[in-house]
């Protein structure tokens, strides 16, 4: 009789331990990125503008990686020598100077057709608490037509482009970005000091 009671006690506490552990796993507080407020400005057309800042050189992560340093197959390169791809990684700051995210910039020549190339710059912006954005000067969203917002006209096509995709807070937004570089000085080693600003104009929710 005592043996049966002990077995029951074992089983009851076993099930209790099992259930409490599963409950703890369900309720376990997974980490969250700190919520940082947006500095966006409302525009009269219903859209919003937000600027992100990169201080040069302190926000650059490492040295820019150029594809030319790798032994890429020769046939992949343009005959005119425009064969370099530049890959850069940065910290991104808000208007208050806080580091709020990461950015990557890749630029290089892409093919327009078999004989002609075109300069393209892709930007990716990731703000852990708010989501990510992909942008490009010459790129196009998957399965979408190229539609330029009216106020995009007249901007430098090398320093501006369309927002292709966004997640979370930036999901389903359309719009464009402009890259502005303000160089204060260049030292004896050729190192530039200044601020690179990514200014985004985003509009409504597109399907």
């Amino acid at each position, binding site marked *: 009789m005592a043996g049966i009671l*002990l077995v029951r*006690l*074992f*089983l*009851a*506490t*076993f*099930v*209790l*331990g*099992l*259930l409490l*552990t599963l409950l703890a*796993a*369900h309720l*376990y507080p*997974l*980490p969250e*990125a700190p919520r*940082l407020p947006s500095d966006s400005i409302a525009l009269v057309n219903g859209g919003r503008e937000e600027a992100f800042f990169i201080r040069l050189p302190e926000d650059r*992560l*490492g040295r820019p*990686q150029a*594809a030319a340093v790798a*032994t*890429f197959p020769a046939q*992949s390169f*343009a005959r005119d020598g425009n064969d370099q791809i530049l*890959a850069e*990684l940065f*910290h991104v700051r808000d208007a208050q100077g*806080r*580091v*709020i995210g*990461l950015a*990557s910039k*890749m630029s*290089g020549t*892409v*093919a327009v057709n078999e004989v002609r190339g*075109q300069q*393209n710059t*892709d930007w*990716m912006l*990731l*703000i*852990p*608490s708010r989501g*990510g954005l*992909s942008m*490009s000067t*010459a*790129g196009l*969203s*998957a*399965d979408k037509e190229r539609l330029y917002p009216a106020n995009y006209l007249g901007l430098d096509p090398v320093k501006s482009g369309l927002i*292709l995709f966004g*997640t*979370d807070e930036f*999901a389903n937004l359309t719009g464009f970005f402009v890259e502005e570089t303000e160089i204060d000085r260049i030292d004896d080693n050729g190192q530039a000091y200044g601020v690179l600003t990514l200014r985004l104009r985003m509009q409504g929710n597109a399907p």
Partner: protein
Amino acid sequence: MNKLIAFIGFVCGILTAIFALLLNPVGPVLISGSMDSNSYAWSALDFYGAELDEVTLLGLPLSISGKAFADEGVVSANASTLVLRGADNKPAALATRLVALDEKGELLSADLGVNSFTNIFWPNRGSLMLYGYENRWPVIRNNILSRLGRVSEDSWLVSAQSPGNSPTGVIGGSGAMEGMGGRYSETLQLNPEGEENFMGQLSLELSFK
């Protein structure tokens, strides 16, 4: 005697639950590459930020990998530059990747993941931009089991359906890949040359408009 039996029962219950969680076969829907996909092996040229291992993903009060950024806003994120190699093992493309912790994970469903943004540039051809969700639970499970002396795996399919059901895959492109869509699948491997960085296999399936 009763207290001892109760204690043993309780501890056995906890251990059984932990093993059930570790070996949980239920998880998010995985996205695997098909026979038609183009595969590239990638390795990191540069890597900055948190490793996004079990310490970071579970928010354990242990020291995060020494490379993690000090700034609070990016402490659970990383950035890297990658070289992609084709079937002939020669460099075919250069890529950048930004990764951050996803906050919609759920321990009970073996789903602890990261959001990954990748930009691939093929010299003088075009570029592709990818967005994906990677469930890192298989990697975490492997790390824990290998510390317990169990046999460990050496590669993990991590591409999975996003818990928020956000569309994942190829999100855009330029040049020869302008406007292309499609999907991709990612398999991670430990880098034998460095304990901290992963290597991987990226399988791309592109679709035209």
